[in-house]
């Protein structure tokens, strides 16, 4: 029992090392900040999306993949929404026609730790390239 001091000191060090990321976050005031959901800017001109918000939140990536397959491989650009409205299957024209990429997509992606999906390696955000040129097609 003469080693008690060393054992408890070691245990205390181990626990401190294990929990140090949490302490570090608290010390930097990040923890409270992170737990808050991101402040998403919703489109001003539209009340409805192509699917209910819950579906979009959970499955917009599957929908985008499906749209991609339909448009590129089958030439099918017509999307009939749940409420019967017809949309063009287009990331740039339909999604970004209402949503602002930086204030909507990027904020939530950064919050969820899935920042920079590689869509944007090729697809353009009309807001950021708008300065260089006006839209060419009808």
């Amino acid at each position: 029992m003469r080693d008690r001091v060393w054992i408890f000191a070691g245990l205390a060090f181990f626990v401190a090392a294990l929990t140090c990321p949490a302490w570090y976050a608290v010390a930097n005031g990040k923890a409270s900040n992170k737990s808050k959901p991101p402040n998403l800017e919703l489109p001003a001109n539209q009340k409805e999306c192509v699917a209910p918000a819950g579906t979009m939140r959970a499955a917009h990536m599957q929908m985008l993949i499906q749209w991609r397959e339909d448009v590129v491989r089958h030439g099918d650009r017509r999307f009939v929404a749940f409420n019967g409205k017809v949309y063009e299957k287009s990331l740039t024209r339909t999604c970004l026609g209402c949503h602002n990429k930086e204030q909507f997509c990027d904020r939530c992606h950064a919050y969820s730790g899935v920042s920079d999906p590689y869509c944007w390696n090729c697809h353009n955000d009309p807001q950021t390239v708008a300065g260089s040129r006006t839209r060419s097609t009808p």
Partner: protein
Amino acid sequence: MKITRKDFLRISGLSLLAAGCKRAAESVSQPASSVRAASTQPVRWGMVIDLSKCREKDGCNACIHACNAAHNIPQIANHAHEVKWIWTEPDATVFPSAQTDFAPQTVTETKVPLLCNHCANPPCTRVCPTQATWKRDDGIVMMDWHRCIGCRYCVAACPYGSRSFNFEDPRPSIESINPDFPTRTKGVVEKCNFCEERLARGLKPACVDACPQRVFTFGNLADPESEPRQLLRERFAVQREPELGTGPSVFYLV
């Protein structure tokens, strides 16, 4: 509820019969719908290029500029890394076997607009290991840049040099980005898509609309009454290297 053996056999027999009938009804109705689909007008997009009109305004390049702007094509100074969808080369290079000893210089040296031939029998699609390039039902040799792995088999297979590879990130070399069309990324192959995205909106290809001389005639080669077919009936036309058996859909009136 108690069920007798006789009832059980009767019910299961009837259910099997019903399932069989449904299957039979489906198989009868299916061929009818596929026949209906096949009876719609077939489409094979093609183009006729009138070189005599093009010669009148040699060095104009309006078609090239229109295509570059519409499709975000990078202008790369390094010739080895060049990306091109529509470009020009001298007549003598494009049609070497059609040259005569005494052809006028105005003909042999004029620039001929070149683009993907959207072959009836495209060699590029045969070699693609991921089916990133394939032939659509309307004759367009299409590319899916999402699926391209950049192996460049298609570049090697195309006898017309219509395909370009992105050796570097194209974005810094694009003068002004058209947000309606994606750029490409480093490591994918690209080529003319016959303005598939414009055709879907009922427009003609960008080069066709941009040409001040109306050199390009675009239409459905499968329709005998279409504009290109009428031109091909009236005038003598050539294709690029037809002896290869690729069946180009781009014709040149010499």
